Every structure is written in C-alpha cells, then in structure tokens.
C-alpha cells in the first residue's frame, strides 16, 4: 500500500512530448493565517478526462478549486490551461480561460425560467430578450444529453434538473473545464446515474470534468483519474484503474495511530434516550435522516460520526427540538413538553446564546424555569448563578459583558456550563469541539467524559475521527442519512470507519 502513497511521477503527459494537459496545477500553496490549506499542490487534468478529487473535510479540496477558479489568490504556484498560465486570483480570467464551477449551493434565480437563468450570463449586449433558446444552446443540450425544460421556472424544477441547468449554464458560457463540487450530495441513485451519463458525454466532447466528492463508490465508476488530498497535500494522483475501494479509503484517511482512550468505563445504566425509526425531511422534502433507531444509556458516551452533510447535525437538532421529525418517535427526558436534558447546538451564537444579551442574562436562559428562580429574579441571585456558570469551565470574563464579544471556545464553555449546571441525565452536543483550539477541545472532551463516567448519557456529533475513537464508548457512523455502523470500542478501526463514512448508500 505504501507504494500508492507516493505521487504518480508520470502524470498525464510525459514531459517534453505527449499532449498538453487541459489543466495543470503546479506547486500551489495557500494559507489562511496560521493554517496551511494547500501545500505545494500539483496535479494534471488531461483533456477529455473525468478526474475525481477526493479527501476528508478540511483536506484542502475546496481551497485548491477556489484557487483554480480565481476566487483565491495563492501565495505560490501556477495554474495553466493548455499550457498557458492563467492570471491568478481573477475570476474573470479563469472564466475567460474556460474554467467553470458548479457550487454545492446552486446560484439560480428561482422566479426566472431555466432559459432566462442561462441567458443572464450569455445574452450580454442585446436589448430584446427572446423567450426561446437560441440554436447554439439547443445544439449544446442535444450534444450533452440534457433533459431540462428550459421554459419552466426554476422553482418548479427538481434538484437534479437544477443541477443540470447549472452545468448547462457553465458550459454555455464556454467552459472547457467543469468543476462539480459534491454533485451527488443532493441526488438519488437514479439521478446520480443520469448525472454521470452527462459527465461522460461532456468528457467525450473533449471537455474535462473535476468531481469533488467523498462518496467513493460512485466516483470510482465514472472517474478516469483520481487525485487524493490529505492535510492540504496531494497524496496520490494517477489512474483510477487498478485501485480498490480499500486502497482509496486508506489514501484518504491515511495511517494513524490509535491513541489509547480515556473513555468512560463501559457501564450501562438506565436508558435515557431512545429513537425508533426516526426520519427527517428537509423543507424541500428531500430525506435528511432515514429510519434512525438507537438508544443511549446512562454511562455511555456515544459519538455520531460522518462526513459533513450526511444527516448528523439534523439528527441531533431533531433530538434537541430544533427540527421536526417527519416519522418515528424520539423519547428523551421531558417535563411536560419541555426538554429536561442538556442540548448544545452546533451554532452557539443565535441558537445556543443570544448575542446581544449580557453573559448573566444568557446564563439565565433555560435555568430561569428551574425552581431556584421565581417570577422575580433578584440581580444578586442571577449574578451568583452566572458566576457559577462561568466558573464551571473557567471563563475569564465579566458577567455583564456582551456575549457576542467572546471567542468561540469561551462561547462553547458558557453554553456547556449553563446546560450542565442542573446535572442533566442526558447531554446531547452537536459538534461541541468544532473550531476550538486544542486545549479548549480537550477541556470540553474531558468534561463530557467526566459526565458520562458520573452516570449521564452523552450523545455527541463529531467530525474528528481521532477525537471520537479516543473517548467514545460507542460510535454510530452515518452516511446519506442512514446509520450504517454501530461500533463498540473493540471494533474501532480506522479503515472500517473510513469505509463506512465514505460508502455510498445502496438504495
């Protein structure tokens, strides 16, 4: 396997001969402050090929693609199209060179028709606006095999049709290199097949396609070449042929040492949280969570793992009451209809805390209903409570200071301090360590482990494999809204979990 972890030296074209690649990324580095998002990234995209760009969250995939599109100005390196250097940091230059990107969030105007959306960027300089597409656009549609009703308003189109429309729009602007960011995340398996058929035809027309993805199984079918990134570097670039799914999963995750955990002792107490067949749909009706069934008992620390956007945050939001459940039942400690357990939402400011209120007021939100406070809240009592909340995790701030001024780590400490102040039987925390520095994250992990050791049931979501393997007594892996793995510590294995996380769902 170690032979794969090297760069493929041959690339797409032999230096000094062979065809010039459509896109050549050469030694691109980009950092944001202290964080090196890309370090000496190099790879080639031959004309007429489909390249899959793979990697975990934060591996640097988006950064390098934004650099290719001219949205970021790299500190070092060059982007070449047909061998000619493209002006760095200029979206217009990138567009003129034939680079087009379809982002995960579509940029379509809902009330306009499909054709009008394309026309916005292609119909410059005319006065009259035709209502039917011009010859060139119809030819392009036929060539690539699009099935979009161009006269329909965008709001009436399915997500798959909108995606096709975005691709068509980028191609109509003259793009020869098409970059698709997580294109399958919104698609059903059938729609995914249709998309890949289109991608193949685009490649057959001499254009090239880069697919950014974390769904291995799907991508392997369509890609000619694979580029794998890890921690800001390209760790593999070469032919797709001859690679197994396990090879690629290992390239993506890398070899890591499993640290001996400081997990809570595995004792199962009473059941505090129980989900049966919980499904959640988004506002557009798309399934976000499918038939989630599991229990969490006292003394357990259960971590929900998954690549971002596979339903973990929606699942936890539904448990916390932020999202409605479309099917199934969640039973958790309640007093009347009120939640009687700790919930730490992923967004502290705005949901967990009111940014405009002082810390002492925020510390009261929720505990104000407990018996300690009546309708009349004497300032001295409120202040004493706020001080206690801040001291739980040693937040150094005055209780009267405005909440929005606090750093992310301190905000998380305040929310946790408040939510844990009543010794809840169940703690549900959505990404409690996300965005925190190492020391803060460790402090919060320790607090959660301590609570579980003391008998509370803890459920948390995490993006960090290492962290999860270290502290969890159980790991639930989610992919495409489904819980695809329920693992005990003796079954923790990087490769197994990595494959579960990146596996596409068979439907």
């Amino acid at each position, binding site marked *: 396997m170690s032979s794969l972890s090297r760069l493929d030296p041959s690339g797409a074209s032999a230096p000094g001969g062979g065809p010039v690649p459509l896109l050549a990324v050469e030694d691109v580095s980009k950092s944001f402050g202290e964080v090196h998002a890309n370090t000496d990234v190099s790879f080639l995209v031959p004309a007429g090929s489909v390249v899959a760009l793979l990697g975990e969250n934060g591996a640097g995939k988006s950064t390098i693609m934004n650099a290719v599109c001219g949205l970021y100005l790299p500190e070092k390196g060059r982007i070449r199209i047909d061998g000619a250097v493209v002006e760095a940091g200029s979206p217009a230059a990138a567009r003129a060179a034939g680079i087009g990107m379809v982002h995960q969030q579509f940029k379509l*105007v809902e*009330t306009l028709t499909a054709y009008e959306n394309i026309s916005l960027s292609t119909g410059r300089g005319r006065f009259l606006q035709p209502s039917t597409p011009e010859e060139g656009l119809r030819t392009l549609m036929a060539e690539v095999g699009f099935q979009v009703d161009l006269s329909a308003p965008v709001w009436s189109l399915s997500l798959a049709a909108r995606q096709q429309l975005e691709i068509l729009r980028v191609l109509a602007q003259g793009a020869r290199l098409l970059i698709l960011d997580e294109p399958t995340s919104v698609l059903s398996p059938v729609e995914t097949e249709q998309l890949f058929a289109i991608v193949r035809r685009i490649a057959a027309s001499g254009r090239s396609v880069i697919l950014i993805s974390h769904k291995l199984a799907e991508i392997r079918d369509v890609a000619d070449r694979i580029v794998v990134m890890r921690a800001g570097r390209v760790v593999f670039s070469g032919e797709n042929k001859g690679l197994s799914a396990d090879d690629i999963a290992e390239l993506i995750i890398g070899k890591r040492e499993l640290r001996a955990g400081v997990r809570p002792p595995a004792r199962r107490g009473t059941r505090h949280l129980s989900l049966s067949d919980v499904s959640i749909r988004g506002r557009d009706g798309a399934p976000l969570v499918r038939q989630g069934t599991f229990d969490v008992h006292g003394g357990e620390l259960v971590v929900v793992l998954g690549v971002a956007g596979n339903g973990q945050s929606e699942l936890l939001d539904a448990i916390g009451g932020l999202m409605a459940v479309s099917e199934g039942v969640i039973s958790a400690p309640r007093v009347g209809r009120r939640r009687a357990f700790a919930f730490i939402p992923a967004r502290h400011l705005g949901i967990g805390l009111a940014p405009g209120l002082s810390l002492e007021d925020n510390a009261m939100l929720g505990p104000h209903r407990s018996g300690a406070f009546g309708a009349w809240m004497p300032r001295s009592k409120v202040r004493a409570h706020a001080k206690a909340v801040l001291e739980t995790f040693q937040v150094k701030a005055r209780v009267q200071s405005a909440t929005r001024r606090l750093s992310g780590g301190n905000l998380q400490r305040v929310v946790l301090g408040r939510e844990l102040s009543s010794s809840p039987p169940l703690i549900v925390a959505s990404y409690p360590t996300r965005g925190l520095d190492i020391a803060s994250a460790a402090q919060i992990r320790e607090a959660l482990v301590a609570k579980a050791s003391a008998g509370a049931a803890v459920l948390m979501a995490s993006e960090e494999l290492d962290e999860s393997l270290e502290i969890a007594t159980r790991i639930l892996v989610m992919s495409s809204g489904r819980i695809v793995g329920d693992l005990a510590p003796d079954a923790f294995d990087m490769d197994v979990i990595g494959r579960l996380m990146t596996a596409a769902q068979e439907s």
Partner: protein
Amino acid sequence: MSIELLLAAALVSATPILYAALGQLLIEKAGVLNLSIEGAMLVGAVTGFVVTSLSGSMVVGLVAAVLAGGVFNAAFAFCVVTLRLNQVVTGLAFSILGAGLSAFIGQAFVGKALPSQMPNLDIPLLADLPFLGPVIFKQDPLVLLAFVLVGVISLFLSRTRPGLLLRTLGESPQTLDSIGIPVIGLRYLYSILGGGLIALGGAYLSVVDTPTWVENMTAGRGWIALAVVIFASWRPGWVMVGAVLFGLVDAYRFRAQASGQAFIDPHFLNMLPYVATLVVLIAMSRPGLKARLRPPAALGLPYDRERR
C-alpha cells in the same frame, strides 16, 4: 347615472394611483421597499401645482414634478441603498418628510386656481367609437399615457434584457453582481425612475384632476398604490386592474355623495382596498403558493457584497 360616465370618471380616479403604483412596481422589482411613496406623491403634487402656476405651463409643471420626485427618491435611495439604513423606518420617515415639505412649500398657494385646464383628447375616429370613445378616448392625454405605460412596462419586464436584469435585481442581486452588473447603480436608477412616476401621479391630482392645491391632498392614495402593487403580486397588468377597481369605488363614492343616496356606504367602500390587500397577503403566506406570486426575494434587503 350612465355607465359610460361612471367608467370615464373611474379611469380618471384610477390614473394617479396607476402612475404611483407603476413607479412603486419598478422600485420594488429592484428590491427596494419604498414606504416613502405617499411623501413622494405629495412632493410631486405641490411641485406640479407651484411650477404650473408660476410658469403658466402645465407641461413645465408636470416635468418639474417628475424631476422633484426623482430627486426625492434619490435622497431616499442614498439612505437605503448606499447607507443601507433600515428601509421600513427610513421609508416612513421620508413619507412624513414629504408631507411636511409639501405643506411648507405650498402654503402660499392654498386655494389658488390654475390659469388653464388640460384639454381633453379628441382623437378622430377613436373618439367617435360607441362606449369606448367617451370612456377612453375623450379623456385628457395623461389618462391614456398611464394605460399605455402599463403595456410598455409589462413588455419591458417580460421581453427585454434590461427587464430580465430588473427582475433578477429584486430576486438575487448577487447573481447580477457576479456577472458584472452594477447592483447599486441600477437600484438608484429604478428608485429615481419610480420616484418620477409616483410624483407624476401626485401632480396629476393637483394639476389636471382637481386642479388645486390643498395640504395633504393625496389623502392616502400613496398607500393605496402600495396596496395595489401587493394585490397585483408585482404584475403590471394586475396593477392596472387594481387601480381601476379603486377608481370605480372612488367614482361611485363621489356620485353617491353628490346624489345623497348610496346603495353601499361610501365609508365602507373606502376601506376595501386595504381589506383586499390583507386578503392577498394572507393568501401569499400559504406555503404551496407559486413562486411567481411571491414578493421579490430580495425586497427590503440592502445589498452588501461582503455579506453574502
């Protein structure tokens, strides 16, 4: 009373509303929530009357009113587009400002009469048509122009590229920005154009319809125009329907008061435009409604490139 005369009177009553509502439509399609409309109408009314009586020319007076409305709305646009102030609060402030400003400017002209009246059209052949002739073609030219404008704006929005850009401006300004079209500049342009039309509606009242100047003479017609735009779901054809419906109510009320007997209480009728607006707003809040009936998505939201 003859139905022809009632309809003819209805079209005259509808005209100031129609100008103001079409102006409002342009501004709101650009994504600017313009609650200063009543103030801009009053500024137009007083400017039109004062300039007409000083210059003796109705045309000069009307042009001055349009310019005044443009300047008034340019100031409004400076506050809400450039400075990105809250559009509701700023709009209400400008509405009150316009009322006060017009009362101040017009105080010396209260009760005066204009030297001449706008002649009615007498288009050969068309004016002799039965029914349509007296209803449409024997009116003053500004009535006809208002209804021609409905068609022009409707075609502009649906059939031209600038119209497409205007529709996009109120829906998704960042889309225009990303293809290199100046969002701020276009919002100024349509605020000023719309302000001119709104002021023309006001000036029509003081210069052509009445013709006289009384403090606060628009008497809520700006708010009705605002309601008509919502009632019409931002579609010019339906704006015309709404304005004519209001005109009918107004004409009927006038007749009823003049004759002393009313089938329906005029005060009840006065309330109807607002009731209709509320009903439409409630209908619009339903989730399954077609997107084209919804307000422009970016209506009332200041555009700031840095905060996508």
